[in-house]
């Protein structure tokens, strides 16, 4: 299978995401100004500071030409993973519920955190076990997930929260300890922690690889 990893001006983690994808499949970098997704099987919107985080995190990237194609791809059921800034972009694009607010401390924090897998029967977590703890680093200034009460209730009721910060690990103040949330259809998922930085025992844990493996499993089963 082949992943497409988006690159906006100011994206920082696209090479890391590409390397992570390449551990389970192939990966191509897709340029923000293009509209051709080159037939990839899944999209990763990586972390970084697209357009310098100017205006509002993710707000400008959402209008890049490539995003029109990504939105279309998502509507057709294609798997889309947003990491950190990518999560913010997908929220701005209306593909994921809620919004990311500044951290409770108003500071950038880079920290290894423990996450709990809420559901394992999904496109993005099928290589994990329900209740499993994943050790993955998080690093951001604007990672406090928020949704108005009615929407938050709906997200919880639909089982859209796939990853939560383990007790004591929610440093950014996210509502309901939400670390990662999917769309209703289940093919778009965003999380603040960085699974692409947890794929090699030499540089930390390998727990993040399970998310990429899950996507590969899903695509393998459906596209074969």
């Amino acid at each position, binding site marked *: 299978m082949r992943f497409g990893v988006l690159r906006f001006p*100011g*994206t920082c983690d696209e090479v890391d995401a590409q390397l992570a994808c390449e551990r389970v499949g192939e990966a191509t970098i897709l340029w923000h100004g293009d509209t051709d997704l080159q037939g990839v099987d899944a999209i990763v919107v990586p972390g970084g500071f697209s357009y310098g985080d100017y205006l509002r995190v993710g707000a400008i990237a959402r209008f890049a030409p490539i995003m029109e194609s990504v939105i279309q791809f998502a509507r057709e059921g294609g798997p889309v993973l947003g990491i950190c800034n990518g999560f913010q972009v997908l929220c701005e694009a209306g593909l994921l519920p809620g919004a990311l607010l500044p951290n409770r401390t108003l500071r950038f924090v880079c920290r290894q955190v423990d996450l709990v897998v809420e559901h394992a029967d999904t496109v993005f977590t099928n290589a994990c076990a329900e209740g499993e703890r994943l050790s993955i680093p998080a690093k951001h200034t604007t990672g406090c997930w928020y949704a108005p009460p009615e929407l938050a209730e709906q997200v919880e009721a639909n089982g859209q929260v796939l990853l939560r910060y383990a007790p004591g690990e929610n440093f950014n103040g996210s509502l309901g300890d939400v670390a990662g949330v999917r769309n209703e259809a289940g093919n778009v998922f965003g999380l603040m922690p960085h699974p692409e930085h947890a794929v090699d025992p030499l*540089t930390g844990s390998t727990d993040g690889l399970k998310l990429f493996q899950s996507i590969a499993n899903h695509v393998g089963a459906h596209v074969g």
Partner: protein
Amino acid sequence: MSAEALAPHRALGLTDAEYELIVEKLGREPNAVELSMFSLMWSEHCAYKHSKKLLGQLPTEGPYLLMGPGENAGAVDVGDGLAIAFKVESHNHPSAVEPFQGAATGVGGILRDVFAVGARPIAVLDSLRFGELDSARSRYLLEHAVGGIGHYGNSIGVPTIGGELYFEGPYEQNCLVNAMALGIAQHERLTRSAATGPGNALILFGALTGRDGIGGASVLASAELGEGDADKRPTVQIGDPFAEKKLMECSLELLDRELLVSLQDLGAAGLTSSSSEMASKGGLGLDIHVDRVPLREPGMEPFEIMVSESQERMLCVVEPARVDEVLAVCAKWETTATVIGEVTDSGRLRVLSGGDVVGDMPVEALVDDCPLYDLAPEKPSAPIYPAPRRTLDTDDPAAILPAMLGSWNLADRRPVFEQYDCLVQSRTVRRPDDADAAVLLLPPTADGAHPAIAVSIDGSGRRVACDPYRGTVEAVLECAANLACVGAEPLGLTNCLNFGNPEKPHIAWQLSESVRGMADACRALDVPVVGGNVSLYNEGPDGPIYPTPVVGMVGRLPDAARAGRLGFAIEGDAIAFAGPFTPSLPGSELAKLRGEALPDGLPEIDVAAVRKAQEAIRDAVRRGELRSAHDVAEGGLAAALAECCLGGGHGATLDFRGAGTEGERLLETLFGEGPGGFVLSGPRPVLAALAREIQLTFVGEVGPADDALTLTLDDGAQLSWPLADLRAARARGLADALDS
């Protein structure tokens, strides 16, 4: 004010004699454009006029050296056709005036130095000094300087992987913000800055040119700070990491496509410095049309355009046939690029505006003819620095250790380094706090090995203030010791010399002795200096800073999987003290906390014995035999042991009988400092084998997880600290200051 004081050259920081020399070199009086350009090129910051003669002592040759001093950054060979380019630079004066932007643009500037030589930046480290944190000003400077470093490094996607941070009274007015960057490149991609080929185009690309930072190099970096520094605020540059991210990717793509003849960043003294350096290195001339430079604001004078220190700009020389391709790559990265001039064979730097020549100077006069001054060093007859303020009122070691771990110089650095992304680019094998040096993965070799590089940055102003020669030797040894603890062999060193006003004899003495110490230590370790930076005039009405040579060292280790850690790892492992370590209290952290005056001189150092210990420990780490290795630094053995316990989450039980624990000796044994000491842990037979090579004493055993640090003294009495108490004490110091 007298008419003389208003003489324009004096207002720009030139002496009368220097002005006369400029007139002689030009054969006429300089006009305003020329005078402002000379004043910058002949400033301390650009011409090193008080330090250049001394710096000649430093060794600049070594087996791994690829590019030495003189280029934007130096570079060493790390094997497999790869080079690591690196350099440290100061941004002290701007940071003292506006800490967030000062520190941010310090990071931006050193990153440009690294990608200007064709290397992709892979890491940033920083060395910071502030006054004591009970001052509101120091807390403000700390918070905003750290914020600025994080803002820039995080947004541009280069990890900040290490650094050091100390607080001492003499930095109250003049904080130090030194930033170091490393980049990686194939050997053949390393790019020099010499302009070649008359007729080639000169292209300026990146941000627009504005009035920010005008005269920064001469006004801020080359004079003492004093009253009314708020007036200098407009001379601090404003950073835009997003613009630099695009500039960096654009520059690296231009080099990958082999479209450039040469490349240079615009730093201090802007277009003036970058263009004249390029012309000088190529032995050629340049014509610059300032009316073609894209401006941020209308109506800028030619001299303002030539001296503007607007950030995020680069200058390159391009063959005429490749200009369109270069402009296309810049357009792809949404980076403004403009042909602003051409290379000539005139040997002159000509500034043109609207077809008129508004400046015309021999390049040699600008770059090479600034007079170099001999220092008049004289050892001061009385102490320069007041004794530190006493903050510790006990002689009880049981109380001293937690107090010391909670003091600002030893407290947990987590509240600071957590504000930096240390992971981006997926190379970080050892994060801050894991080990004495940061470790970064290199690409795997053809035969499947996973080599890595290690890097550390060190300096102790107080020790250098006690003894400029030996204090500097200690700083170099400490940096090498940190590399040894992760298993790395040092390949090269960069330095930043932060001192007061060198025109004063006692500062001249500190500077000369320090450089002599650095030269001797580098020779003794066979580590060449690949480049560096000098920051002088760091003093104000209250006196000079502690003399602070900061050294950054890069080393290589063959197997990343065996990179050392500092924390005790396995219960039952033996603990040993190793190395030629002779603890002494004068000049130590304990002496500082007790308010003791600085001693005149530090004990003699057996550098050869320290080197031997470092090499033996490095080799043991490389063999994968040691479970932990940590060098003894601030706070002596007791602090080092506490750090090993807290780092690994394991207690330790140690027998100090026979180590000298009677009376005052006890404090010296526990908290005395000096170079050459290590705390090691591992299987007993491994340490026993090491004891046949170097001085080594078995002292105890790693205890159960999260237990206590317990020492048995000569008289059988015990000192014991629960790790939870030590951890809590160490966690508070900086966190409290940052959140107050």
